[in-house]
């Protein structure tokens, strides 16, 4: 009797089947948002109708500090914006200031900058892949990636003394020369690392559960990607070969041979989370090629160009961009003839990539939202500056 009454009630409810929209908060402290990011979700059951990101929880007033310091004193602040790839932040800033000064730098410096930049790209992609695996549910790749990353950080520490925030690449050169056994250590590490990458391939790239969780989710089509100005692995995962190292080469990137991996939709649709992850994995292999070519032809020389103690560029405006591991990092510097910059504006790649999230996360489950956010690979220090 009770069973029949319960079944009747349940069936009548099921026929109507509509539910209200509930507002949920994935707050600033959450294990899966990569830092302090607040997402306001409007959900209908488990399906997401709308996502609104709220940022600004790590706004550290970089641009105001830059107006009060010398050109050299700004470099530690620039490091701390994208704290996972701080060599590349220094690189971008140094190139912008050298365009304003109009100086030439020694050959050895160019090679050292590219070697350090590409090692930093490998380290940053290892963190991205490791934490993406952790979000989706696998714990072992996280430990393997961090073990390999520690060896790269040991190389950096022997060169310049710091593990995470280096203050190494200055306008005009590099602060310390490479130590004598750097070439042997680097080549040994690369040989061992290529073997360890095969473990990662079995654990993540060809893993059926990982493919089920990420393929066909968060598809970003080409038109939307260009209209929203996506850059880095976001836009290359959708099939567009947009890489600043090939379009507008800076440094001496035009002397090296390397390919640009693009997503092709092998496992699901073109432009989904699996494509972006695979583009990052293939970029690690390309970076290894560039480092080996650069170490082969490393010339001798001094590592710093003679500059006066106070850098005073003439009046001018410059916008220079580099390809950081997350996308297009742009520095817009206005100088008014004194030794402090008048205005520095940073075009951060994660800031622009995060604005695509409301567009590609419509209609997916909450668990898929975590996978999409992990595949965009944001760093909140850059988003909020």
């Amino acid at each position, binding site marked *: 009797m009770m069973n029949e009454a319960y079944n009747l009630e349940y069936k009548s409810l099921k026929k109507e089947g509509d539910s209200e929209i509930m507002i949920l908060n994935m707050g600033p402290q959450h294990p899966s948002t990569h830092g302090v990011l607040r997402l306001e979700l409007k959900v209908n059951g488990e399906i997401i109708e709308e996502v609104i990101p709220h*940022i*600004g929880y790590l*706004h550290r*007033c970089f*641009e*105001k500090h830059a107006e009060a310091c010398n050109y050299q004193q700004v470099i530690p602040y620039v490091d701390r914006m994208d704290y996972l790839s701080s060599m590349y932040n220094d690189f971008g800033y140094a190139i912008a200031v050298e*365009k*304003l*000064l*109009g100086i030439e730098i020694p050959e050895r410096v160019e090679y050292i900058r590219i070697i350090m930049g590409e090692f930093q790209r490998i380290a940053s992609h290892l963190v991205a892949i490791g934490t993406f695996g952790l979000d989706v549910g696998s714990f072992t790749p996280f430990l393997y990636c961090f073990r390999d990353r520690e060896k790269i950080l040991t190389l950096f520490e022997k060169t310049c003394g710091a593990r995470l925030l280096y203050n190494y690449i200055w306008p005009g050169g590099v602060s310390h020369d490479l130590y004598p056994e750097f070439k042997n250590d680097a080549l040994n590490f690369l040989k061992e690392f290529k073997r360890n990458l095969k473990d990662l391939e079995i654990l993540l790239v060809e893993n059926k559960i990982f493919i089920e969780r990420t393929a066909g989710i968060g598809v970003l089509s080409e038109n*939307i990607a*260009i*209209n*929203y*100005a996506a850059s880095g692995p976001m836009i290359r995962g959708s099939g*567009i070969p*947009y890489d600043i190292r090939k*379009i507008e080469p800076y440094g001496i990137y035009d002397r090296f041979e390397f390919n640009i991996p693009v997503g092709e939709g092998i496992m699901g649709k073109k432009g989904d989370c699996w494509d972006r992850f695979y583009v990052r994995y293939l970029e690690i292999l390309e970076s290894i090629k560039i480092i080996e070519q650069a170490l082969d032809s490393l010339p001798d020389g001094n590592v710093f160009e003679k500059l006066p103690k106070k850098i005073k*560029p*003439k*009046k*001018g*405006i*410059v*916008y220079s*961009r580099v390809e950081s591991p997350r996308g*297009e990092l*742009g520095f*817009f510097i*206005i100088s008014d003839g004194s030794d402090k910059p008048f*205005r520095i*504006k940073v*075009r951060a790649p994660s*800031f*622009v990539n995060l*604005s695509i999230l409301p567009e590609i996360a419509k209609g997916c489950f909450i668990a898929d939202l975590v996978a999409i956010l992990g595949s965009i690979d944001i760093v909140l220090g850059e988003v*909020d*500056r």
Partner: protein
Amino acid sequence: MTIKEIFDLLKNRFENIKIYIEKFEVGEEYIVVSPDVLKQILQEIRNNPRLHFDYLMCISSVDDANGEIKKDENGNKIIKGGTLSLYYHLYSTTRNHKIAIKTSVDRENPAVPTAIDLWKSADWHEREAFDMMGIKFEGHPNLKRILMPYDWNAGFPLRKDFITPEYYNDLKIPY
């Protein structure tokens, strides 16, 4: 195409509009327009098949600080008059050329038409320009603060005459 050729094309297309190129001793050159014709120029450079600028890289806001410097009652420096500037940096993925466009608005009442219907990436850049410098974008659907807290009422932080307030919601700010 170089910037000179793009500038000539625009000058031939719009004959009555004041538009000129500016360049300093070092650095890059850019095209200067006034704010009332800004929307027409932006539409033209996006839709013209020879130009086809479909990638908006960055919108930057600058405080020119070229007005008079006065002192108010407490002895703090205030700037009256003068301009605020906006710089648009664009790139074309099909033709592989880039350009920079500058406008200047009044400091007392800054207002510019929005570019969100042309490029969606302008959405968050314009919100940040409003938050940091106070420039209003007419036609923007959601012009709120983005980096500062929503109830921050102590001014616009990146202006040159911004004074750090003492307290925010019972939290002491200075060191």
